[in-house]
């Protein structure tokens, strides 16, 4: 369960709307079910009380939506940012993707988001409603008379299990306490794959990537993927379609997708969260982050709003590509 309530956020947003500080509020509202909250814009206090929700399923990173909304809406926009969202916010700011003056950012605490796939694994299908309790979720299903209690810690999303920071790196106002940067084990999974043989690694990724249906959700949700014209939308590129014959498309798409955000990816984990096929896409991003940290020095995208990313920078004594692959990755 989250430490701040929907009601308190609603009240704060409504008062800022009322006094005219902001013209719109960017938050979350219920989708078709209790567990598929979607980003939404609210422009009146009544809309907020009716629709606004902040709970264990408010996983969507709202910073990306500022790009469009700051252009569409006159006046300031209030945006609620969880700690990991503030990194994306900073990163977009350093790329001059939106006007900071048009945004009123409120940092809100996050105790980790729940993964509906993990809940389904425990309670099965037919979920009708989910209520939040102290440290657990009460899941109502079609087939059980009594709600099933699931502990929050048990169903945390993968990205929240390896939370890198509870600290807000950018905000105008903070609700709750200032958090801290955590030491996470987020590269463990990458290291596990690195330790496999080349054939095993190939088989692992073949298995994962061949499930891709090219829905582009990972690209569309990613706060670092903000090109107005995407290389994958070009019908002449030869990479737009899902090929029935082989898996080249998926490999190309996912390598390039991860590559295009390398150095700018804040590791917010949105790609994996939105993937309908449960492909661990964040591992590709983390591999790039790990490689860059090891080769060019520690770097956390979005930590400050004026950093130079490793791939748009260089030093005269960088190692050669052959040495980078040999250093640490050389296996028979």
């Amino acid at each position: 369960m989250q430490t701040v309530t929907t009601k308190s956020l609603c009240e704060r947003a409504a008062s800022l709307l009322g006094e005219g500080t902001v013209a719109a509020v960017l938050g979350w509202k219920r989708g078709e079910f209790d567990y598929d909250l979607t980003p939404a814009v609210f422009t009146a206090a009544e809309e907020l009380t009716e629709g606004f929700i902040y709970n264990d399923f408010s996983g969507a990173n709202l910073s990306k939506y500022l790009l469009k909304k700051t252009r569409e809406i006159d006046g300031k926009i209030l945006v609620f940012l969880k700690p990991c969202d503030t990194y994306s916010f900073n990163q977009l700011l350093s790329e001059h993707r939106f006007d900071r003056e048009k945004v009123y950012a409120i940092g809100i605490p996050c105790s980790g988001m729940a993964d509906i796939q993990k809940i389904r694994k425990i309670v099965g299908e037919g979920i009708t409603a989910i209520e939040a309790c102290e440290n657990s979720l009460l899941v109502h299903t079609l087939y059980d008379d009594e709600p099933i209690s699931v502990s929050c810690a048990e169903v945390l999303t993968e990205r929240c299990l390896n939370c890198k920071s509870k600290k807000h790196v950018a905000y105008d106002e903070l609700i709750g306490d200032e958090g801290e940067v955590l030491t996470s084990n987020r590269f463990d999974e990458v290291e596990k794959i690195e330790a496999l043989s080349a054939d095993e690694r190939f088989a692992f990724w073949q298995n994962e990537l061949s499930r891709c249906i090219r829905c582009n959700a990972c690209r569309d949700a990613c706060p670092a993927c903000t090109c107005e014209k995407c290389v994958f939308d070009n019908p002449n590129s030869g990479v737009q379609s899902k090929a029935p014959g082989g898996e080249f498309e998926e490999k190309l798409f996912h390598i390039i997708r991860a590559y295009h955000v390398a150095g700018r990816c804040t590791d917010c984990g949105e790609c994996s969260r939105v993937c309908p096929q449960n492909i661990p896409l964040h591992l590709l991003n983390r591999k790039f982050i790990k490689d860059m940290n090891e080769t060019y020095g520690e770097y956390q995208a979005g930590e400050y709003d004026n950093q130079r990313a490793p791939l748009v920078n260089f030093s005269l004594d960088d190692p050669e590509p052959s040495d980078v692959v040999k250093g640490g990755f050389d296996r028979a």
Partner: protein
Amino acid sequence: MQDVKEFKPVIVAFCCNWCSYAGADLAGSNRLAYPADVKIIRVPCSCRVNPMFILRAFQRGADGVILCGCHPGDCHYSTGNYYTRRRMSMLFSMLDFLGIERDRTRVEWVSAAEGAKFAATMNEFVEKVTALGPNKRLEDLRCKQ
């Protein structure tokens, strides 16, 4: 009896206009032999090569891709090859992570005076790729002939 066809790899070599392409030229005028399987694509600078070019070369049937540019410090545009070095380091490491044989990709710095190095590098690279056999892990069946 049908002859077993000897495997001839297709190698794509991206060469920068100012150093490596001239190096290849020099190898030719010096009559240094290197395999005809190497297809040279001239680019204005090694940093013109987008990671997509490399993957696309594999898609269209390349068995190995080599990228040649000016030596670090000698770039015609001052700093282009420094960026190449970082980009390709990251890309090759990622390909390795996905289980694609790392001997299929390479970066080599060849100056305009190094015709001999160009020929030697190509001979060595073709030999390595031939040993690996046809590119199976990054092939696109739609592009097969």
